[in-house]
């Protein structure tokens, strides 16, 4: 056990140490890449559903370290971001080696069966970040991390009703943006 454990890294990251965050990402990355690859192989429509799997990955990672609920939330939030990067990279790679636009969709199981074009979702999120970074994070945690309102409240320090309300706003903004894409994004 020469490596610092996850709880330690988390504590350091929250204290502002970017190295610690990077170490956490490195730890999450292989597991999340494996999840993404498995989903992509299994799903002939190239649709990805992530939520529960990320949860599993994080739980696997943190189980031995005995993290608190808030810590778990932070790990999930971080995993959400990592997952987003992996998926978007993947979608870009797919697009670039095919002449025809080949869509990779994200299916969220957070609610119903919404399906999103990953690249479009990603660029909408970049726009949302400019408008309201917190909303963009919320989408990331919910759609890419499959986090519950409870988890998000724990990570962000917002009350659950506020998370719910902000979530409605974020989702509305996103759907509107996806339906009215900016050309040549």
């Amino acid at each position, binding site marked *: 056990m020469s490596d610092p454990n996850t709880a330690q890294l988390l504590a350091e990251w929250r204290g502002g140490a970017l190295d610690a965050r990077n170490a956490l990402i490195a730890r999450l990355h292989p597991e999340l890449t494996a999840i993404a690859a498995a989903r992509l192989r299994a799903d002939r*429509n190239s649709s990805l559903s992530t939520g529960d799997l990320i949860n599993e990955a994080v739980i696997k990672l943190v189980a031995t370290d005995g993290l608190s609920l808030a810590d778990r939330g932070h790990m999930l939030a971080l995993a959400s971001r990592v997952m987003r990067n992996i998926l978007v990279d993947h979608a870009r790679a797919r697009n670039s080696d095919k002449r*025809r*636009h080949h*869509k990779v969709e994200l299916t969220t199981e957070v*609610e*119903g*069966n*919404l399906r999103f074009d990953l690249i479009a979702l990603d660029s909408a999120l970049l*726009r949302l970040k*400019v*408008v*309201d970074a917190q*909303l963009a994070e919320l989408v990331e945690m919910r759609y890419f991390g499959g986090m519950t309102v409870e988890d998000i409240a724990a990570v962000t320090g917002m009350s659950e009703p506020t998370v719910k*309300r*902000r979530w*409605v*706003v974020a*989702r*509305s*903004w*996103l*759907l*509107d*943006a*996806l*339906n*009215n894409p*900016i*050309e040549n994004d």
Partner: protein
Amino acid sequence: MTDPELDREAITLFEELLETDPADPDAWLNERTAGRDTLRARVQALRSADLAATLATGGALNHVTDAPPPERLGAYRIGERIGAGGMGSVYLATRDRGDFEHTAAIKIIKPGLLSERLVDRFRRERQILAQLRHPNIAQLFDGGETDDGSPYFIMEYVDGLPLLRWAESVEASREQRIDMLLQACAAVAFAHANLIVHRDITPSNVMVTPEGVVKLIDFGIARPTGLNLPPINPPSEGGSLQTLSLTPGYAAPERMTGAEPTTATDIFSLGKLAARLLEDDVNNPELAAIIARATRPNPEDRYGSVDRFAQDLRAWRDQRPVSSFSGGPGYAFRKFVARHKKTTFFSSAAVVLLIAAFAGTTVAYFAAERARAEEAQRFQDVRNLANYLLFDLNDQLRKVPGNTSARADLAARAQTYLDTLAASKNTNRDLRLETANGLIRLAEIQGSPVERNLGLGTDAKTNLVRAEAILGDLHKESDSPQIALAESRIDATLGLIAIYRDNDAETSLDRFARGQAALDRVADGQRDAKWRQAQAELTRNVMDRQSYNEEYDDLLAAADAQEAFLDSWPDDERASQIARLERAYAWYYRGSAQSLIEREAEAYPELRKAHDAFKTMEAETPNDTQLLYMIGWSGAEGYAAAARIGKVDESADLLFSARDAVKRLAAIEDRDESAKIMLITIEETYAQHLADIGDYPAAIEAQKHLVDIQIADMDETSAGTDVGWSEMILGGIAASAQDRKLACDSWTSALTRFNQAQANERLSAFHASFLSGLRANVERCRRGVPVTEFGPLRLPDPEESEDP
């Protein structure tokens, strides 16, 4: 194009709305966004997206549980559930009573989801919907309410995939995708012909069977008009909340105002559908133009019918020129040409708006749906009329330019319907106003000089006078702004007909004055955006008259007044496309007038401004023919004005821009003579430009080419003056180049053609004014006078030499 600052405000407001949960969210929002329409629209868009998400996810925010379905409904036994959504569930059902057995789909809507209005409407329309039989429409068999009050619909069971899913799964080619769109268009056009509007065409309502047949589902019942889901309260009767039930991205913007859906609404959605399905090709300029026209914010700017949209899609697929409007030129066009030739040749223009109010078809006919419940007779009549004008007439206009008998037949049929309406002893004011507006629209199609017309000026006048009588009676009972606006429209068209057709200056002056008086009648408090637009349009037509009559002082004053008037508009209207267009026209007329009174130094910047404005607008709505025309004229005249004050170098780009615009116009309106003629006019200016910069060989070559193509285009009906005109210019260029032989040959030929035309009484006064100068030069040729001593072609006549 969203502005982050605005978005932030909208987000905050939307959040506050969710938190406050006011009893009347619309009123709350109106209050909070008073005077800030953009902000309100933005918040409404978010609300609308929220509701769509709620529907799509089965009501995640408020799980309404599905009651178990009854075992049977009518003759159908209900089987397995094949779908579920926010609205309710869809079940397979088998008909096992009666003579035959078949499978259907039954959609059971959750109680309370459909507004009373929609349920009512459905009850009324069920018969019509059930009769809507088309291979591309999933047929509705029946509908009703279950014992617990849930509305249900029994329809044809479609075993297929939603459009986008289908395209993905078969990796559909472009041709296949277009084919599906065309099938969907056929279905919608058929429904429109029966006055049924789908209301909510989205990819999920367009199914494709394994055989590749499109089936549109949910006709006329597509969406609830209000939902009992927090945070939004049940809509007040007829409230604008119904708009929130639309699918974002596919619903037309006018529905945000709570307007009833029309055929134009469906055209918008089909345009969005095309954009989505053909997204690999959306950068193609022609496809982009088709989609842009289908999805214009203003319903009247969209395609007049689904068939027209489909026609353009087909043309694009077959790589034929995409041509939305290709009707032949009206009789008035010769005059335009003559006048523009004057402009470009002498750099002095009296110019016309040649341009179309390519007005879409009128709103009056769309109102037919609304009329149904009110009055059976009225409905039947308007319905016939609507079918006719919206579909047949537009189609024929598109397909048969120059086919006189077909066009006459069309107008006659439209006339029949309107006559029925006018003759009915009905005293309903709305019906009479609608009839008057129908007659006005028909008259514009028949003979408005400023749009592609049928050349039926007499009929147009008769209909306008009849409309005027109807409006006069209504006015006697009581006045209204609608009456005044309709009257001003009649006067403007009659005024234009008087100038262009009848050469009757007095009548035209009188008509425009009456049009103005009608607008003046509307009380200050009732002067809304429509009134302002009508006023600006009337002024534009007045400027056209002044330009035609060469009343330059008045024209300059009118242009100033028009600009001041536009300045007085409310902020949002001032920034609108209409205001920008009217302003560009004002600049154009002002520049044109100044150029004619030889104030080129002032004219050039005005024409340049106008040209640039038209060009900017055209970049926003590519291939808009009206704008292309105006880029052409303002560019050509601007160049001519600049050339006369020696600014050839800095104005040459105007000429090139005009040339480019008109070439595109000629390609788009490939069957439109007027575009061809305009192109020749501009090419002629270009040849003269080459001569001006001293490149005589190129100038001569260009002009010779124009003469050649026009000779090739001649037939037994040609008067020959066009060729003569071009030869006359060729002679002028040759004289400048000291090519005596070419100058004399060209002028001699031109004179022969002009003389011939005069003998056949086909030489216009404008062309005739060159005869004496032309004769004098041909005489000098015969006498052997050196080329340097030739005289001007047009000898000043006493009237024109007066100082303005």
